[in-house]
């Protein structure tokens, strides 16, 4: 059961400065929740680089290879149909479907990959219990600090307030 301390800031600049401030004070388990992507927050939170490009590549190559195999097997092996003496294993004629299948499987994998990487769908996250958290998709810039014990909670509370948070609330997954 996790506990978070959520602080709301008014602008993206305040959020960035507060995140830097919290880091300087030794808080590392943080997340920012904002209505639009804030430039530079990834570096402050030191998020790992996304592995989605690799996923897209693998899925794309897999889709292309699969499509070529299906076409080769159906046209040249399982049901060889002679059309005016044209080659049965006619690679160039297979290219359009190979390309389309590569795009289809890469895009599908990326879509699912984004959802998995974001931990979605999850419509009942504990943050949503906090009524004011609605502003996170409108005009509020929130910082969530994961706290383990009461001392950590008090320290994070003080730090968030000192850095200019407009409001600070505790969200406890255990108390839902």
């Amino acid at each position: 059961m996790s506990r978070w301390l959520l602080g709301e800031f008014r602008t993206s600049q305040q959020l960035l400065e507060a995140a830097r401030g919290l880091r300087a004070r030794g808080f590392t388990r943080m997340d920012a929740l904002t209505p639009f992507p804030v430039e530079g927050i990834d570096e402050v939170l030191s998020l790992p680089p996304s592995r989605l490009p690799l996923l897209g590549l693998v899925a794309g190559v897999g889709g292309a290879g699969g499509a070529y195999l299906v076409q080769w097997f159906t046209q040249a092996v399982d049901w060889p149909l002679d059309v005016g003496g044209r080659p049965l294993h006619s690679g160039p004629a297979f290219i359009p479907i190979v390309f389309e299948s590569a795009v289809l499987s890469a895009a599908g994998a990326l879509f699912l990959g984004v959802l998995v990487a974001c931990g979605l769908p999850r419509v009942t996250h504990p943050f949503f219990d906090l009524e004011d958290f609605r502003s996170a998709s409108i005009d509020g810039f929130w910082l969530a600090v994961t706290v383990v014990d009461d001392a950590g909670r008090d320290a994070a509370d003080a730090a968030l307030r000192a850095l200019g948070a407009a409001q600070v609330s505790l969200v406890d997954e255990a108390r839902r």
Partner: protein
Amino acid sequence: MSDVAPKAPVTEDPLVEATLLEGRYSNDQIGQSLLRPVLGPPGWGWWALVGVCSALVVLLVVAICVTLFVGVGTWGNNIPVAWAFGIINFVWWIGIGHAGTLISAILLLFGEKWRSSVNRMAEAMTLFAVACAGLFPLLHLGRPWKFYYLVPYPSSLRMWPQFRSPLTWDIVAILTYLTVSTLFWYMGLLPDLATARDTAKETWKRRAWGLLSLGWRGSARHWRNWRTGYLLMAGLATPLVVSVHTIVSFDFAVAQLPGWHTTIFPPYFVAGAIFSGLAMVMTLLLPARRVLRLHHVITEAHLDVLARLLLVAGLFVAYGYIQEHFFGWYGGDPYEMHAMSILRTGPYAPAFWTVFTCNVLVPQLFWSRRLRTSPAVLWGAALLVNVGMWLERFVIVVSPLSEDFLPSSWRHYAPTWVDLSLLSGTVGLFGLGFLLFLKLLPPVPISEVKQLQDELESSERFAREVVAEARAPGGGA
């Protein structure tokens, strides 16, 4: 907020940044103004248009029933014109769809900021256009319930689809395009669905949007993965647009019919698709901008740049026309020369010259800046281009088929009421889909507009700091 007076902020120099956002707003105001059409009750105009479109959809259903119960013989096409409205409408609709992907994907890759205000509507247009397009080949099969014969599945017949034929390429291309554009559109929608969820007052609306938004929280981890995935999908969608319409043009170019068998077709089709799609974007965008009062995010700078794109695409299309006729003559093949000359002088010549007027002459208006930013002129021109591009596909499909190698088998073509009902019916279906979209989903990407404003503000702040530093005693050079 609602009375933002649009001025004429178009800059003289194209390199100077144009006004992409009229005025500055709080993030809450942006959200409220862009969600107003979704949260408020619909006006009488919306209901009237829904009525008209629903009537057309009823007509579509009637025409489909006639086609299914009586047969494709109720259509006007027969030998030698075996392809007519079915393919014309298919190519027209799928081409319209392509500009949506162009605006959202290609411009995202190029980092064009102006895309943010128009991409959502353009993408929605793509979806409905592709759905309309898909109907025609399906119905043209004659037995649409056997469409799955085109999919390679291990059947007891021990037969497989013929993958050396462009028609099997078509079904893969269309299904891929429909799927990828839906995923791309939905992924772009996620953050805005969360905004709608959090702005709505009624519980059922919050629940509905909450489910659709999949629980988006706007976490930094969400944004990071979302942006990576979105950008990569844009990178995939961009070549997809080109490939899909290339494959559509292969349906023609791979055949050996004079007037079709030409290598100019793939690029010429892609240019035509983007051209017609831009026209359709304007046809929808300009009234929506006015009625939904989106002047602050869809500024005259957006109209200006769309008109320029229309002009450029129109020039590509004109080049295609010239090349087609030049090669017909230069190749010296009598059948090819005949196919080209009946375009200009034959029974379908009025259609050909209308195409020339609408697609080549009308876009030339947009060399003038004043006309580029006049919504009325743009809308009129866009309608003419829509008509011109439909007729272009008509002359491409019908004219070479009706007079091919053997004069004894020449026969001209006329559509039946079923053909015309199917065409107008899909216009109604497309319109109905777009109207429902405008009512149910945020028509302009809210998070992107907020981000755009944030970027504009920070660059202004940076400029102010530089100036202040330069003016300070001892500071600056």
